[in-house]
């Protein structure tokens, strides 16, 4: 049975990518699909929150704001109050995009896959993560001070979401990033009901 599920997984993905599925998350809920200060913790403060603009995808494969029946996107960014070398990420970005169907969201996740297949940093590695219906992740290091980045993107129904966690290497972990992604996914699931 498990083997059957594995074999059928691509079928599900292709069906999603071919435009199947309807919108189950209403675009009125867009701003509620990203992390909140409550979710990231009191040590973190938001320094930007709003509808995604050109800058948020500029120079990436996801730059076309009207891609795949996209209905809108939201982004929030936090940074941490306190000593910079304390455990945990220093900067957290959480974003979400809504599409008119799960097919569009699937195509958007494919663009995330393309983005995460390489990085401008060093020690780039793919990360095995499981969030939402399908997901992708990676990690890399910005040289110099060895700043570590974890990026996780996923699709859930007609939404895509992504979390980026940045901090000094050894202070921020994959677990931090996964915890944030799972927390955001719970918010998305609540919005889908």
């Amino acid at each position, binding site marked *: 049975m498990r083997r059957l599920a594995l074999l059928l997984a*691509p079928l599900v993905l292709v069906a999603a990518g071919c435009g199947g599925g309807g919108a189950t998350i209403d675009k009125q809920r867009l701003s509620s699909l990203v992390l909140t200060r409550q979710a990231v913790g009191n040590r973190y403060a938001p320094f930007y929150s709003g509808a995604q603009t050109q800058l948020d995808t500029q120079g990436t494969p996801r730059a076309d704001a009207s891609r795949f029946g996209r209905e809108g996107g939201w982004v929030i960014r936090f940074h941490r109050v306190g000593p910079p070398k304390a455990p945990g990420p220093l900067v957290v970005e959480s974003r979400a995009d809504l599409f008119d169907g799960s097919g569009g969201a699937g195509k958007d996740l494919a663009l995330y896959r393309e983005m995460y297949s390489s990085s401008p940093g060093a020690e780039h590695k793919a990360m095995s993560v499981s969030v939402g219906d399908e997901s992708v992740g990676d990690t890399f290091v910005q040289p110099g001070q060895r700043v570590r980045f974890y990026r996780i993107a996923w699709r859930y129904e007609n939404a895509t979401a992504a979390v980026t966690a940045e901090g000094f290497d050894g202070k921020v972990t994959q677990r931090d990033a996964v915890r944030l992604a799972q927390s955001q996914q719970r918010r998305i699931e609540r919005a889908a009901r």
Partner: protein
Amino acid sequence: MNRRRLGFLTLFVTLAGLLVFWASAASGVPEPPFADDEDTTPTSGVYDFSRGGGTNLTECPQAGLQGNNPQPLDKRSLDATERKSNGGSDTRVNQDYSCMPQDETALDVNPQATRNIIGGANDYRLGWGTSGFYASTDNGKTWYDGITPFPSLPSGDNLDGGGDPAIVFDRSGVAYYAQINFNRTDDTSGVWVNRSTNGGFTWTRPCVAIQQGAADQQGACGGAGDVRQPGDGTVSFQQDNDTVLNGSVPSHDKEWITAGPRPAGVDPQCFSPFAVSTIALAAGTATPKTTVPCTPGTIGSDRLYVTFSLFSGAGSAQIFLSYSDDQGRTWSTPKFIAGAAAFCAPGGRPGNACDDSQGSQPTVNPNTGQLWVGFLNGDTEDEDQYLVVTSVDGGQTFSPPSRVDTIYDVNEPRGVNGRSDCTARGQGSTRAVPTNSCFRFDPIMHSIVADKRGGAFANDVYVAIYDNRNGTIRDSNNDVFFYKSTDGGTTWIGPTRVNNDRSDAPTAANANAATNARQGARDCGRNNGTIAGTQSGCLENNFGADQFFPWLTIDTKGNLNVSFMDRRLDTDSPVGAGAWPTSKTEVGNYLVWYWGASCRISSTTEVSQTTTGSVPAGASQCVAPEAVVNPTVATGFNPAPGAVPGQGQNPATLPFRNFQVSDVGTNYDYSFRAGIFAGDYSGNTSGPIVAGPDTPVGDNGFKAGAFWTDARNGRGSGAPTSIEPGRNPICEQSDVFFDTYNIDSQSNNNGGAKGNGHADEDFLVAPCPPGIQDKGAGKH
């Protein structure tokens, strides 16, 4: 393997293949037109705060304000940063108490009354970007300010987004303020010019003419009782066609304005008030506007020239020019002026057109009326190039472009070559950013000025640019370079490094990492043919401090005045310091001052040649000994990563005297929204752009003026050490400042600046004081 399993396997392989194909197809986003993948979206436009767009602050640092105007019920105690900021001679120009930023500065002086100075800046006091004006009638000691009126549209709406200020007086003392205006929710945009006849205290409100029926040649403004002349101030306008912000129609960006006498034989013209479709302009199919009789009494002393970038599918950005003889009331059909050339062939445009251009600036010789326009062009194999075209008939026809030099900007640090810390803060991934900071500083806006004298100097024109030829993607070291032409803009002499601090050239030995090095030296870590790359391909090395946003003017005695942002005095701010510790990777080179540099040209000789070589003695004033004639011939159009002109110039023999202008070094991380924006240019003036009858300059007593953005009144927005009010943009703000200095003094201290010449701790981390938080109604 049984048949059932084989069937599943076949299905799996087929579907997986389909999946790969589909994913690949889905990612087929069109390649950007810039050959090197630089961003091709307009540099201006919507650059806003998050939803809400307000600070909710009732009090914030207000250092630099002078005069006896009414003041708010502000009970704060001044912090150490504010007390130090107030200690020098810099005058804060914006008079608002909004705790919002001002940036991107331009100014000019009234030739009829030189105590009258007008400045312009992006001004966010309303919570979004508008065009601020600032007027002084006492040589810049005190200022009046406001927001220029928004243009009215045929729809009855107003375009309330504005920016990209440019200011000029004509010889009769009428002031003009050019700007772009745009909608935030759709693609409607245009270029307009406001006019002031009282020294910049009152401004006209531009009007897009409403055409009432196809036969209507007069048009109307707002309706009955509207006293404006239809079309007044409208240089170019495009209404969106689908009410969605999706780039469905061309968009306007980065205009500039100048004024000058009509050349001999050129008569004034006036035009139909109706704007031309920019879709037709971009396609080259626009029907020229009809000429109409000028309204009596409106012909100005000078012809006004406005150039602008038009982003469209026809070219990533084409440069257009429009002119006006009736004080900005009517404007000629915008004309594509960037021309075509062999050095634009890599862009692949029809006829080698130089269609991938931005950052244009016009300048006129006030004796002959000859016009030059300089602009950045990206129709190149790799690095960008700076081009100049000229017109001797008032902008009717233009020469083909001449190539001043390569702009070495592909190796600027960016998100796509390793500055992921900046993209996490919200910066666009292809925007150039300096080492240690995340504010964008793409080398797009450079500066060009014509000599103001006639005779032997009538063909002389000068350019100041900045680029990263002395840095790498890991360690930026932008320098300001000066070029001059003495044959009307065909032959160029340079580069001459203007800033005279230490600036070491990257070499294979000091820049290339042992592993992953690609291209080498200044291009270490770069991927071939793109702006992408990885910083791990470069060694960490402080090559020198960044200088950027230069502005160049000249007075009537030939004193060249260059002013620019400068980080040289910060030699000791530590790695990991400041508000964003993961961004601070290099010792020093972080806090920003404003600096000036001057040099006098008192003699000239025409140098006109197509080859490279040493500079003739008669044309060597203000030229570095290492500079050459036609540097672009020396390097070719696509310079290799090795040594290029402008590297390794001896600071001891550089001709420009440098001096500090601003009193304090400020932290641009506190300028605007997590430190990602501080404007795209800065300004100065060396007397009026157009000489008038009352123009005392230089030794006669006129001092040059500088007008710049700094963040001395900005404070931390939270981590790591400050208190977070929880609002946006919290304590971040920049203001605009003015100071005067003597550019023809031989003194080494003619900047007049006092104060700290190092990375002062109080500016390195300036916490957001709890006392400035919203106290609620009545609690003051």
